[in-house]
């Protein structure tokens, strides 16, 4: 039997096992919305802005490992989605984004709500498609999911003209697709793995530096096994938090610009660096000229283009992290390999000295609420079990430093693009994926206002999020840089005319709280987290002058941190 393109679309999503579709309707996707209306397999979630649809799908993907799926209309619908697509692209998150397009006959005519969606999104997608014939639709959708979720994941855009969703064709959803030009590696090279193991076992001052690739390839358990077996120190990037339990003694916390002193000093002084699913981002390396001056470097990554891109490596291994780590463990077992215990003991002694500097200390007797204290309490009250999304700024760094993630997929933030506005919609996606779990969004009064309209979506779908607004009346991270590097000329970093967030939350039908005294922080959090079925917006009025420490200033090496 023949189906319309719109019906084919819906059937494809159902066959693909898609449960949630985040979107917003419009002219070019009316046929698809009509088909969605007549089925109940795929739940459509109506957001209030297309950017939020992509972030929600992104949060869904980051917290489940499954692809997030989005549907928006042509023109402004597609352009509004671009920020979210770029956000997912920078962090290698699997999304499939469907954009409506004007009818094929009108393409190129400057038709109403026409933009070249394929052209606009090209630099920020893994791949994209324009479907010109309804007979290609099902295969294209299959390819989109295949590309988005395999190899180094990423967003894929499928642009569907209105006449294609209205036209009819036989429906057949292929079980699998193969593409001659796309064959992601599935295993690491055995000789390289052996070489890496040999190097690791001779290391005197080894360091494991692990990133988002560990989470994306679900390699946490292998990483834990390997790290424990070797007894090496380990540090996580902002994207890799939770890949290894933060409360474990071997974990030195996050590295990089606002990482811990012990992690950065460990990096700088190591003799063998084992980079796993991490990409030597500039926020991690500091000045590349001064990076790991004495280290031989092993790099495991699924993407050959990540290897030796910023830093030349000695032993590259291209392959999925989980697989490569499994193979490494097998090799170590086979050769009965043992690390250099005596050298490690000396190394750990040095590391403990760095750790004893207590680089994350802050004033605990302040009369003002310290943002760090809020995060410590949040950690305590949620027993480290919450899914935590964040926006971008100082609050993001404090969340990364003070919330100790012991499990992967729980820390959800825009690391690569640094997109303000990400936190709240991402939290919605997480809550849809995990309806029974506790989801907190750590944000600032600047960031939250970039997607505040989603409080309305939260009411519609009864999402009991907990919004932790660290309100310092400043675009804090901007203010911090102006204080350090622009002689305190605070150009446009002060937030005037803020709304009354309590009333705002209430007007959206939620619970609002304002907390102004340090002693109220913990009781208020307790009270809020007891409200299991309500969204609670907590407006913490924090110390305005607080800065994120420690810090590697621009141009400095990892051993040149500014401490408090």
């Amino acid at each position, binding site marked *: 039997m023949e189906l319309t393109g719109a019906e084919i679309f819906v059937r494809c999503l159902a066959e693909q096992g898609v449960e949630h579709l985040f979107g917003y309707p419009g002219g070019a996707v009316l046929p698809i919305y009509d088909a969605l209306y007549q089925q109940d397999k795929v739940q459509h979630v109506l957001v209030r802005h297309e950017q939020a649809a992509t972030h929600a799908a992104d949060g869904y993907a980051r917290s489940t490992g499954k692809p997030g799926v989005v549907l928006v209309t042509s023109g402004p619908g597609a352009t509004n989605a671009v920020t979210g697509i770029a956000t997912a692209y920078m962090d290698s998150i699997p999304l499939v984004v469907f954009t409506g397009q004007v009818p094929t006959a009108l393409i190129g005519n400057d038709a109403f709500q026409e933009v070249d969606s*394929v*052209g606009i999104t*090209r*630099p920020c997608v*893994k*791949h994209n498609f*324009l479907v010109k014939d309804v007979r290609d639709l099902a295969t294209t959708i299959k390819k989109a999911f295949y*590309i988005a979720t395999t190899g180094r994941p990423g967003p894929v855009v499928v642009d569907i003209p209105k006449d294609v969703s209205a036209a009819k064709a036989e429906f057949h959803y292929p079980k699998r697709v193969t*593409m*001659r*030009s*796309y064959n992601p590696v599935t295993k690491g090279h055995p000789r390289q793995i052996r070489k890496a193991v040999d190097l690791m076992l001779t290391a005197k001052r080894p360091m494991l530096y692990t990133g988002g690739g560990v989470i994306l390839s679900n390699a946490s358990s292998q990483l834990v096994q390997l790290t424990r077996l070797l007894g090496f120190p380990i540090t996580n990037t902002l994207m890799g938090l939770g890949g290894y339990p933060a409360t474990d003694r071997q974990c030195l916390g996050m590295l990089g610009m606002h990482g811990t002193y012990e992690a950065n000093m460990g990096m700088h002084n190591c003799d063998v660096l084992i980079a796993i699913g991490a990409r030597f981002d500039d926020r991690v390396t500091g000045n590349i000229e001064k990076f790991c001056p004495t280290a031989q470097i092993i790099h495991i990554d699924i*993407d*050959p*283009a990540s*290897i*030796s*891109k910023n830093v*030349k490596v000695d032993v590259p291994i291209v392959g999925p992290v989980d697989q490569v780590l499994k193979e490494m463990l097998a090799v170590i077992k086979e050769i009965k390999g043992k690390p250099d215990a005596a050298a490690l003991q000396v190394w750990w002694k040095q590391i403990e000295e760095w750790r004893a500097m207590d680089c994350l200390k802050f004033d605990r007797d302040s009369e003002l609420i310290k943002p760090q204290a809020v995060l410590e309490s949040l950690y305590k009250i949620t027993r480290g079990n919450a899914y935590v999304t964040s926006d971008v700024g100082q609050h993001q760094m404090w969340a990364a430093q003070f919330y100790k993630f012991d499990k992967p997929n729980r820390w959800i933030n825009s690391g690569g693009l640094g997109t303000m506005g990400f936190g709240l919609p991402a939290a919605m996606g997480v809550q849809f994926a995990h309806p029974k779990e506790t989801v907190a969004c750590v944000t600032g009064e600047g960031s939250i206002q970039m997607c505040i309209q989603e409080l309305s979506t939260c009411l519609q779908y009864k999402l009991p999020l907990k919004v932790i607004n660290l309100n310092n009346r400043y675009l804090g991270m901007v203010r911090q840089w102006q204080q350090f590097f622009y002689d305190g000329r605070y150009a446009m970093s002060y937030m005037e005319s803020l709304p009354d967030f309590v009333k705002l939350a209430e007007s959206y039908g939620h619970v609002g709280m304002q907390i102004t005294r340090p002693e109220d922080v913990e009781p208020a959090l307790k009270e809020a987290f007891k409200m299991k079925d309500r969204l609670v917006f907590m407006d913490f009025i924090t110390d305005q002058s607080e800065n994120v420490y420690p810090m590697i200033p621009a141009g400095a090496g990892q051993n040149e941190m500014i401490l408090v």
Partner: protein
Amino acid sequence: MENEAGALSRVAGLFSARGYNIESLTVAPTEDESLSRMTLVTTGTDEVVEQITKQLNKLIDVVKLMDMQEGPHIEREMMLIKTRAIGPAREEVKRLSDIFRGRIIDVTDKIYTIEVTGTSAKLNAFVEAMAETDIIEVVRSGVMGIARGEKSLRV
């Protein structure tokens, strides 16, 4: 590359987004009409060229890639050059064209249009040799390359 709409712009976009040079680029369909073949000339350090190779391989539309510099190969470029040919210049242009094994493919009483094929260096040399004459227009195809001997770029 896949002979698909948009494949070329993905390559061009990659080069501009990452700040790589394109010195010349030619692309046309092959005997297998699902494929088109592109020859791209670029410059950079070994590291940059390695990155370019990896980034190109990452593009879904790129089926197979070969760095011609890695082995013996042949490069050819074609040039059409239109020049004024009056008075004594008429004989001189013809003589130069013969030396460079060019062919005069269009003639009027004032104009010669010459076709020359060869390496880019040879075409540059020809343009230089013609410097004294009144060149009106130069069109170059960009470089095409193919490996010598058994080695080939096939899918």
